[in-house]
């Protein structure tokens, strides 16, 4: 009963407008990589899924988008919450996933393990939603590319290992490659595959 109750509570209070709010934030964050888009806690998923990552999942996922969860999120309450509110099936492998939710990016598998899309359909790659503590306390990333006038800087905490090197490889696969949504407890920022990470400062 507890899990059942947890799984049905905490969805969008106002599904249409809440989903639009989240979608707008994701769209703006993708259009201006590195910009930080604040997002109120519109969803209340069971732990360890964060409110922000949960809201992004509710806005973007549905029955047609297989979803992959990292080991930390393989919790039955999280699975049934996502199942009830999005209808998204769980992907068998990361390469089948349209979206991936990752609670512990520092321990995540390599980016090239996810679907990279095809040359004909590069849109079929996985969009990764990474839960990060904040966007200021990690190693600084200097960003360049479409949607950035000169440069932008973010410093997400707890990023994947060898992230800058992995991202360079992701860039080289263009037009294929993954896109990343970084979700803190109250904001999101995005790294689309077109963004280049120029250098990293200590």
């Amino acid at each position, binding site marked *: 009963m507890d899990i059942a*109750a947890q799984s049905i509570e905490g969805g969008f209070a106002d599904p249409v407008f809440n989903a639009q709010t989240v979608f707008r934030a994701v769209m703006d964050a993708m259009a201006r990589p590195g910009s930080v888009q604040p997002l109120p806690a519109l969803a209340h998923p069971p732990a360890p899924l964060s409110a922000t990552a949960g809201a992004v999942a509710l806005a973007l996922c549905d029955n047609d988008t297989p979803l992959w969860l990292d080991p930390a999120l393989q919790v039955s309450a999280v699975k049934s919450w996502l199942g009830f509110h999005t209808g998204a099936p769980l992907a068998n492998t990361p390469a089948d996933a349209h979206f991936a939710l990752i609670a512990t990016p520092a321990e995540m598998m390599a980016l090239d393990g996810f679907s990279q899309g095809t040359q004909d359909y590069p849109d079929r790659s996985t969009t990764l939603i990474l839960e990060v503590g904040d966007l200021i306390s990690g190693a600084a990333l200097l960003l360049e590319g479409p949607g950035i006038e000169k440069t932008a800087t973010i410093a997400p905490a707890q990023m994947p290992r060898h992230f800058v090197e992995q991202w360079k490889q992701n860039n080289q696969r263009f037009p294929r490659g993954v896109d990343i949504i970084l979700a803190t407890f109250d904001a999101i920022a995005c790294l689309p595959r077109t963004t280049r990470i120029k250098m990293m400062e200590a």
Partner: protein
Amino acid sequence: MRGREAREQAERKAVMATLAQSAGDDIVRLWDEAGLPCEAELLRGPETGLVTVRGRIGGGGAPFNVGEATVTRATVRLASGHVGHCYALGRDKQKARLAAIADALWQDPAHRNEVEIRIVAPLQAALAKAREQRRAETAATKVDFFTMVRGED
């Protein structure tokens, strides 16, 4: 224990089937007559969407997608904490909400009998009658072949 659980699930499914098959107006009328509570917290919907209907190649082979159908669903929670669901073909949101409440009330031992007797039983009787009538009307068009004897002696 497992047997009881399975039986209970089968009964609940049958109740949901009856509600889904019945017309919204009939459910509303019986609900009003029964004076059952119709307050519940809406956890999801009522909302209308699609399901893709699947058939099988040759009738029994591999599945394929035939087309879509409109479905309206609702999920409610009663003050007692019981959660009820409804999925039904069509776009009748009031029906979906009431059917979800009926599903929740049915799970509450305090209300199960009342739901069974006042709502489900009359609906089921009406459905069975309509079904039997349709079957009998079709049966009247059954061809009875007579063997004709040809030629003399």
